[in-house]
């Protein structure tokens, strides 16, 4: 009987699966792949969605199975887990730099459990400074907390007069 592959070798293969909406980031560094279980019954990959309705998840699951198949591990299963919920805090500094190079301002650390009402309803709530990924200017403003995908917000740079995406702190 063939020996089980190591978890590291499987994660290495999974690092070839890119997020369809962020083609420079793979699903391991994004924190979508939570664990890999290698047993006699085969390989089970635990994944967690970024947002409840993220339309990329089905593509990602399909890509995980087909990529493992391509590397000699057919029949892998994907298991979706919801706890603990995905957070942008799992994204490493190296990956954040990749986002920035691609033209997306990277997320700030999540300051969970805020100040109640003030955080929820104040138009003047404190917002972190988001530097423009194109020119580096700190003179930017938020246009909308909802952008081209669930994970991005729309900002505008007053320095180079361009709109840009901010990867939402989540």
């Amino acid at each position, binding site marked *: 009987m063939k020996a089980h592959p190591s978890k590291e070798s499987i994660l290495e293969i999974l690092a070839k699966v890119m997020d369809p909406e962020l083609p420079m980031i793979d699903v391991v560094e994004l924190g979508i792949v939570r664990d890999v279980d290698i047993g006699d019954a085969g390989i089970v990959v635990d994944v967690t969605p970024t947002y*409840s*309705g993220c339309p990329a998840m089905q593509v990602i699951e399909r890509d995980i199975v087909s990529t493992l198949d391509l590397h000699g591990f057919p029949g892998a299963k994907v298991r979706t887990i*919801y706890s*603990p919920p995905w957070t942008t805090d799992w994204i490493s500094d190296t990956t954040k730099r990749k986002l920035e190079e691609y033209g997306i301002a990277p997320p700030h650390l999540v300051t969970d459990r805020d100040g109640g009402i003030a955080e*929820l*309803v104040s138009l003047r709530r404190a917002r972190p400074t988001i530097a423009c990924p194109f020119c580096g200017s700190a003179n930017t403003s938020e246009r909308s907390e909802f*952008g081209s995908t669930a994970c991005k917000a729309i900002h505008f740079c007053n320095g180079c007069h361009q709109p840009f995406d901010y990867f939402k702190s989540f």
Partner: protein
Amino acid sequence: MDERSALFEYLLRLGDDRLVLGHRLSEWCGHGPILEEDIALANISLDLVGQATLLLKLAGETEGKGRNEDALAYFRDGIEYRNLQLAELPNGDYAYTIMRQFLFDVYSYHLLDRLRSSSHSELAGIAAKGFKEVRYHVRHSSEWVARLGDGTEESHVRSQNALDDLWRFAGEIFVPDEVDMEMTARGIGPDLLAIKPQWELVVRDVVTRATLTMPADKYMVGGGRKGRHTEFLGHMLAEMQIVARSHPGAEW
């Protein structure tokens, strides 16, 4: 009512609120007053339908009769839907859509916050994820209530009209029945009456800041939790369900 039936009913309520309201919001797609708002409502709609998918999937598993989330969404009639009537009301003008969303978001925020510590671990996981999304939703709707209420004379009048009209639908949120009490007793769902003052606190704060007037409680309608709906739900479901019902089992 046994525990499984109560849990099934409870999950349908949670899922149907989000599916129906999410579908309503999706009707704005391509019609938003400005591009950023068109995108925002589409995003919020996607979050809500995503949450509904997870909740209805869990409902189907709880029921144990082989119905998945799609079967529950597309092959139930209006009388089998358990959403609040608030969620199914037509979009109206933008002030109306925003006010409806605001009243729901604040409720959803406090509900999911409590559900994160539900004794039902899968429900707790779904709530923890949804809670993070709803924080963004409340910020969006509350800030627009403030802008429109404290905006022009026209936007102020439209916002006040929306609030006055929607108020009678808000009462239904906080009327616990035997399903809610069973869930509370088992530590699965929170006590709705404990959430109500928190909801009122935020609603009053935002409404006051928006220079609007809190309506008085008059006759409060309800019945959505028991399958009694306004005339609007059937029309919405007809549109939402027609493809699935015309081509059952179709895949693409």
